[in-house]
């Protein structure tokens, strides 16, 4: 998470209007869902990967590693979709095996639907990765504010985002203090230490919340977090690239 956060602040698309980046990601996501072809999903992955590396200047292995981690979970889900379990021997299957009274099998239809599902999901994931790696959460909350999303929701997002990092610091500090005193030597001691850590973090979050409330009040907080709107630049090239992306995905749908 910290890596994603770091890159979202230091990439070449950082100052581009988040509406453009979010628009591109959502458009890709929608096309992957609507066009529903494995080739479309794979092409979307390539497009997003290329845009992240070439336009945003992110390292290619980073995008690949992220996709690999997410792809692993997708693969598990796709495997579950492809595998058929029944108590009757399957008639037309690509592969089948008997395990006791049960039959495990892969049919052509189930494999095709799992491949379609996995590639579609991978395309959508790549689009969201592109957005997450090029747009810091501050820009996204600013975009949500511009879109008239209820301010309570946006304020909660802002504070939760801030708290994630302060609590992460607390977690690392407490865990180090526990490790220094052999808090994790052995399973039982480790689970007990982890429970204490969780309880302490909860209390820490509560106290931090109270202290933050006092600090906000001292600067004139009156129930609404008024924040300075951020300024961005438009990127016409990104619009043309988005058009190209749409055209190629539609073409892939027609041709493949």
């Amino acid at each position, binding site marked *: 998470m910290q890596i994603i956060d770091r890159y979202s602040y230091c990439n070449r698309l950082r100052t581009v209007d988040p509406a453009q980046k979010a628009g591109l990601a959502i458009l890709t996501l929608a096309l992957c869902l609507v066009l529903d072809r494995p080739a479309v999903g794979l092409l979307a992955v390539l497009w997003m990967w290329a845009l992240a590396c070439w336009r945003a200047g992110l390292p290619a292995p980073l995008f690949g590693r992220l996709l690999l981690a997410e792809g692993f979970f997708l693969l598990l889900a796709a495997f579950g979709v492809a595998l058929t379990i029944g108590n009757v021997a399957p008639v037309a299957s690509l592969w089948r095996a008997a395990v006791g009274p049960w039959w495990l099998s892969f049919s052509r239809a189930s494999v095709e639907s799992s491949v379609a599902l996995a590639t579609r999901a991978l395309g959508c994931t790549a689009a969201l990765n592109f957005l997450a790696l090029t747009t810091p959460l501050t820009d996204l*909350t600013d975009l949500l504010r511009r879109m008239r999303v209820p301010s309570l929701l946006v304020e909660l997002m802002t504070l939760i985002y801030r708290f994630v990092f302060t609590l992460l610091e607390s977690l690392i500090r407490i865990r180090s203090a526990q490790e220094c005193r052999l808090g994790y030597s052995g399973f039982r001691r480790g689970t007990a230490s982890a429970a204490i850590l969780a309880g302490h973090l909860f209390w820490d979050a509560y106290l931090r919340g109270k202290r933050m409330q006092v600090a*906000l009040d001292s*600067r004139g907080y009156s129930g609404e977090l*008024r924040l300075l709107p951020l300024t961005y630049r438009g990127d016409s090239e990104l619009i043309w690239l988005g058009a190209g992306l749409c055209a190629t995905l539609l073409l892939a749908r027609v041709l493949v």
Partner: protein
Amino acid sequence: MRPILELEELYYRYPGQESPALDGASLQLAPGLKVAVVGRNGSGKSTLFLHCNGILRPDAGTVKLDGRIVTYGRAALCELRRRVGIVFQNPDDQLFSASVAQDIAFGPLNLGMSDSEAGRKAREAAETCGIADLLERPTHALSMGQKTRAAIAGVLAMEPTLLLVDEATGSLDPWVRRDILALFGRLTKAGKTVVVATHDMNTARRWADLVVVMDGGRVIAAEPPERAFAQGILRDLANQMEF
């Protein structure tokens, strides 16, 4: 010189506590002073600061701003918080926004300034605190010294005449602490009063114009450093620790 803020016989007891946190504390703060507040843990320094800014209301006693009793109505509190800024001990408690610029501009926006005016105030405050190059940075990516400067800038952007700093320099390295004390010195030359709660007796002795000693919820001395360290509890401490 007429004091900016006067605290008269303040009493305050936190809910559920037996002994009062403030037990008749009185203090007058004049413009352009460098003030160090010293005292043991639990002597009432932070509670006193929270009364100065209107976060806490005294059970008894009065807080006067420019000679007028603070009434704690919406407008009076807004005025008090504009005039009296407070920097807390841990900057992480104060920096709530993800971006430094947004955090610094928070106070001015709450004072009703326009976005452009608040942005200008934020830039000026950041320049004063030497963090103009960090405005676009996320607050969680700052060092402790930078966070402290950002927290100070967030208060300075509201242009207070009185700045209260609650042990915020305690966790900083000596170089950053020196720079921040120098910044406070420049602010006092511009007519602001800076009040620093500290456990560092060298800061109290060498930096401050006035040393306020607190004990048991009371102000037991408010003297120039040479006089404060020559009497009472500070004399014994000075003799034992040789600062």
